[in-house]
């Protein structure tokens, strides 16, 4: 579960990225976080992953109070999260299998668990036949599947996907979104940051819209017309 209560964030250059944002995401939810560039979406992702700390307000992620978390606790908090990036961030010189085993081992898993889990997750994302390929030998969609597999590997409570379809064509984007929906159906909470209205509107999910560092809309289903125009 994620709770942001009156969270504000100002950067050192004085820019106010968030102003009194309150969002609650319950376990098992699928939430789209939408908004134009510079609206504060990425700041929310960075706050949730403890890359930055809030200037004001309270922040709880999967039972960890990020206002009081110590640097030693941060890795353990992050193991409850899976993060998917727009640019995949796969290690180029490791093949698909190694990219996944590396991530699981980094999170402290043992050899037997790694083999079992990696096989299962590769099958889930449909890449079990390509586990020996290097990322450069895969299409963008396949690379993002590997990134999703990596995020899901450690069985996190929540996956945060930051513009996961930003580098993909509409057909591949839809596939990725359906894969994320499938993972959500298995019980993992999903927070998908995107600005692709068409894609969001195809799924009947909760949509949190943010603009100018404030939450301007929080509802289920399609964007409202006037909000679409604003965004």
């Amino acid at each position, binding site marked *: 579960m994620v709770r942001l209560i009156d969270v504000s964030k100002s950067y050192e250059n004085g820019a106010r990225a968030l102003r009194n944002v309150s969002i609650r995401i319950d376990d098992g939810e699928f939430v789209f976080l939408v908004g134009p560039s510079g609206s504060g979406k990425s700041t929310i992702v960075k706050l949730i992953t403890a890359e930055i700390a809030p200037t004001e307000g309270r922040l709880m992620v999967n039972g960890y109070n990020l206002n009081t978390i110590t640097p030693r606790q941060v890795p353990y908090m992050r193991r409850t999260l899976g993060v998917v990036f727009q640019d995949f*961030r796969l290690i180029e010189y490791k093949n698909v299998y190694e990219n996944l085993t590396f991530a699981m081992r980094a999170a402290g898993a043992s*050899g037997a668990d790694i083999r079992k889990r990696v096989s299962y997750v590769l099958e889930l994302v449909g890449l079990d036949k390509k586990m020996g390929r290097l990322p450069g030998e895969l299409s963008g969609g396949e690379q993002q599947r590997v990134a999703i597999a990596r995020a899901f590997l*450690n069985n996190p409570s929540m996956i945060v996907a930051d513009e996961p379809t930003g580098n993909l064509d509409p057909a591949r984007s839809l596939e990725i979104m359906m894969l994320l929906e499938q993972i959500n159906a298995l019980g993992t909470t999903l927070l998908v940051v995107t600005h692709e209205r068409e894609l969001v509107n195809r799924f009947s999910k909760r949509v949190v819209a943010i603009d100018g560092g404030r939450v301007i809309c929080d509802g289920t289903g399609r964007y409202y017309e006037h909000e679409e125009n604003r965004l």
Partner: protein
Amino acid sequence: MKKTGCRSNFGYFLREGIHNIFCHGLMSVASIGMSVACLLIMGSFTLLAVNAETNLKNLERENEILAYVDENLTEAEARAVGSKIAAISNVSDCTFVSREEALQSFVDEHQGNALFQNLPDDVLRHRFQIHITDIRYMEDTVEAVEAVPGVADVSAQLDLSKGFLTVRNIAGAVASVLVVVMLGVSVFIVSNTVRLATFARREEIAVMKMVGATDWFICGPFFFEGLILGVLSAVIAFFLQWVTYEALLRVIETSDTMRLLTVMPFADLSGWVLRIFLITGLLVGAFGSVTTIRKYLRV
């Protein structure tokens, strides 16, 4: 989820460390090359200093003070003076030479010269050959020996001893400075190489942080990489040092002038050289890698 143990992580770090070295082969070769060069320079000057010290010690041993005993004393009285000389703090040994022995030695040195044959027994005085512990205090020791009752005169090559001292001090100081400087250069080079390697892998480190790797887990492979580079550098430098030292030894042995120098065989020094190289290599590798990687942990 079952957690990995220390042994499992150790194997992983070792494999990843070796893997990293091969993955960034050119940088690893450059790092090893520079470390080997630094260790060789450091080792060469240290060996030079060790051999200089050995030669100076030899010269120090051979540099003796002669204390002549008052000629009015009997041999027994003259011998008794020896205990007072031996009690002086810087005196390491003190050997009595009777006037007869001194004369015999003198005659032996000038065999064939009729002028020195058939000299009377009492032409020379009883004397003591004195060796000292520390050449730095030779002047004080000479004064102390002169003050001993029964000692008529003291002969000491003070200028020579001061010369030895100056040479040893300069050699020691130069060697010490070079060791410190080369150590600093080695750390800088290895840390720079690891810095380049970690910079090249900053994305990888960022991913590790994102999936919840601890700082120790992230540091592990880089730490082992540094250690392996250090050990490889030390072993290569050791064998190169051995080869160059033996080659120099052969040159010295065949040279008419330089063969007067005492050069220690490498076998006598190899244990120390290997240990010093390994310790230096390990420290430089570990220090260079850890200090550098810490910068990239702030993700």
